[in-house]
């Protein structure tokens, strides 16, 4: 069966306003050399999904530059391949879609012209390496109308976050969909990955348009849960949702752990591709002192780096000290500057002798192109 992938690039932008000021959540840099969308696109390609639409809304310039023709993911295809679905605004109205359903109604043309049997929907806010092939295979085997991917999570203390939870019967069928404003105890939390028949999706979208429904999981699913067979798929691997800046920081720090690194990058059938830049290897100088850090290509390190994640092309001058920080591409830390619990967006500069620190749980954010 042929599967089309539909990626929502903007949903959840508001969770991470610092990082998404210039970009979509899909193009947020993560784990030293990737962007969030790399994991989604790579998993799709590794699962044989070679027709992918990326639904955009705003600030998608960096995303378009990153994805380009899709060549780095082998998605420059004659049939299928990757396409950016830009928002369709009618002359005079100027209104952009405000929810997932509208976004899809917006792109119904791509769905109608596709020759795929199934559609896989996914967001870009969760760091994970998910074998999408298994999910599609399970969907086909189970004969479900819709397969919904969830993670079983336990919260000792109640947590405020808008998430969708599933109640399952003994047959793995979703019998109830709940909107969890506050989460406590053990819940099946939706990962917002769905597989369903393409024609079913088109029908749902048409109907929703007629009735003015706003949300797929809050309006459509609860109303239809008896009529359509929604099956759950539990993913129990590593996941990290980028729900705020601290979670973003933690997601980067997680990759310093060997077991998580193995889970994200160790599966030979699921390599993660990204846009190539032809950077030189990273050069460590005579005075470099680097410990427990994840470092990308093209860096020049003369100073000290500990418990940190450095993206491509970062320069750490002699005497500079970086600890517990995430430094994005082409940033420069000059002589004797000191950074602790910092997230530094790309091309920022910390001048000589600057001392900047956040603290655990509250990393300090330095914006793109800022000079301190």
């Amino acid at each position, binding site marked *: 069966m042929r599967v089309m992938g539909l990626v929502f690039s903007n949903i959840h932008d508001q969770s991470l306003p610092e990082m998404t000021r210039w970009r979509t959540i899909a193009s947020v840099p993560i784990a030293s050399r990737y962007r969030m969308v790399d994991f989604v696109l790579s998993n799709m390609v590794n699962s044989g999904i070679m027709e992918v639409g990326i639904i955009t809304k705003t600030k998608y310039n960096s995303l378009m530059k990153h994805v380009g023709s899709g060549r780095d993911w082998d998605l420059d295809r004659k049939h299928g391949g990757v396409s950016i679905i830009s928002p369709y605004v009618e002359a005079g109205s100027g209104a952009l879609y405000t929810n997932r359903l509208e976004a899809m109604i917006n792109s119904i043309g791509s769905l109608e012209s596709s020759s795929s049997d199934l559609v896989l929907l996914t967001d870009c806010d969760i760091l994970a390496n998910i074998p999408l092939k298994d999910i599609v295979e399970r969907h086909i085997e189970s004969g479900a109308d819709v397969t919904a991917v969830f993670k079983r999570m336990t919260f000792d203390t109640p947590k405020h976050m808008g998430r969708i939870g599933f109640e399952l019967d003994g047959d793995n069928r979703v019998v109830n969909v709940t909107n969890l404003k506050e989460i406590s105890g053990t819940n099946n939390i939706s990962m917002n990955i769905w597989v369903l028949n393409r024609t079913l999706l088109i029908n749902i979208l048409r109907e929703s348009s007629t009735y003015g429904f706003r949300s797929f999981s809050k309006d459509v699913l609860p109303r239809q849960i008896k009529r359509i067979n929604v099956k759950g798929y539990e993913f129990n691997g590593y996941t990290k949702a980028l729900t705020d800046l601290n979670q973003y920081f933690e997601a980067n720090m997680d990759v310093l752990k060997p077991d998580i690194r193995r889970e994200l990058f160790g599966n030979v059938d699921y390599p993660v591709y990204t846009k190539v830049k032809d950077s030189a290897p*990273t*050069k*460590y100088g005579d005075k470099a002192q*680097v410990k427990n850090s*994840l470092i990308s*290509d093209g860096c020049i390190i003369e100073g000290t780096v500990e418990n940190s994640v450095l993206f491509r092309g970062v320069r750490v001058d002699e005497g500079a000290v970086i600890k517990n920080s995430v430094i994005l591409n082409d940033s420069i830390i000059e002589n004797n500057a000191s950074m602790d619990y910092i997230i530094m967006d790309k091309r920022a500069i910390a001048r000589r002798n600057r001392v900047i620190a956040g603290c655990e749980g509250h990393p300090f954010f330095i914006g793109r192109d800022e000079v301190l």
Partner: protein
Amino acid sequence: MAVRKECIAMLLAGGQGSRLYPLTKFLAKPALYFGGKYRIIDFPLSNCINSGIDTVGVLTQYQPLELNDYIGNGGPWDLDRNNGGAHVLPPYQKTEGTDWYKGTANAIYQNIPFMEKFSPKYVAILSGDHIYRMDYNAMLKKHKEKNADCTIAVIDVPIEEASRFGILTTDENDRIIEFTEKPEHPNSTKASMGIYIFSYDIMKRYLEEDDKDPSSDNDFGKNVIPKMLNDGCSMFTYGFSDYWKDVGTISSFWEANMDLLNLDGGMKITDSSVQRIYYRHEPRQPHFIGENARVINSMIAEGCEIYGTVENSIIFGNVHVEEGAMVRDSVIMPDTRIRRNAMVNFSVLSTRIDVGEGAAVGEPLEIAKGSITVIGENTVISDGVSIPAGASIEEGSPAAKGAMI
């Protein structure tokens, strides 16, 4: 009919690299790994595209499989073109017999039909043996200004080394008067870099003549260039003074790698203000430096996990250096594992090597007296085994299991 090209390049990539054995046991020399991320052929290919030459014939012969795969459709060098682009040109069967490429001139001669498609005015003849960054377009400009039949790139070498090269003597206008291959008593320090630009029609005529001469070795340096000079062709040198290194031997290969560690000299490989060298990528994660690791004056590529000590070395992708292991003054090619407490000193290790726990490969630079240890691909070196300085070990050698050598 292809679109006409003013200048195309023919890249001689059939080199066996026998002095680099066993690194070149399964690889043509141009496909050999270099500098942490690259292969030797990346340098001339990147130079071509950076010089505006978008049509490159790559002539392969010895162990071409990996080289062919590596070049593919030329995409990594922006050479995947509808008009032109990279073309791998192996020897092929013709209606009148089949020939391997006999010499450099014969290899180009056999590909006259390929070159004719583009009706070029000029052809650059390049080799896949050198590490350098050069603007072939500047050389072409001089070739045109001088209205030359042939222009040869030259570099000044110390007089005591001149007898290793093809040496050119010129008049005050850079016109070539004399060319001698490896002269015993050199009278000039201008060494040929093996980079030629020919006016196509003249080159074609000389290649056809050369093919008819049964006494010829069909080699540019030995036959074609002396013949042209003898006939009074208009031949000039193009002086080049930037970094250039022949990597034909183990020691020059090791030196050229080490030269990269000097960021201000050599290739300036990390300098974003100079033209990039492009390469084919493998999807590898960023490298990780462990809690007790120590990495100084080294280059580390993607996919590495370094828990031990690395000093003055070039480490390619997906190399694991375990805790307590030490790598010094060495070049370690991809997919190799250096296990706990192993020592690698002053060595070049090919791909997919497993250095066992506590094993010692090579001896420290200060003691080894210039004898580099070389390990061929897929070799397993058993735990605790010592490989002496200057040894050359291949897969399955008894020495890798600890037998005396």
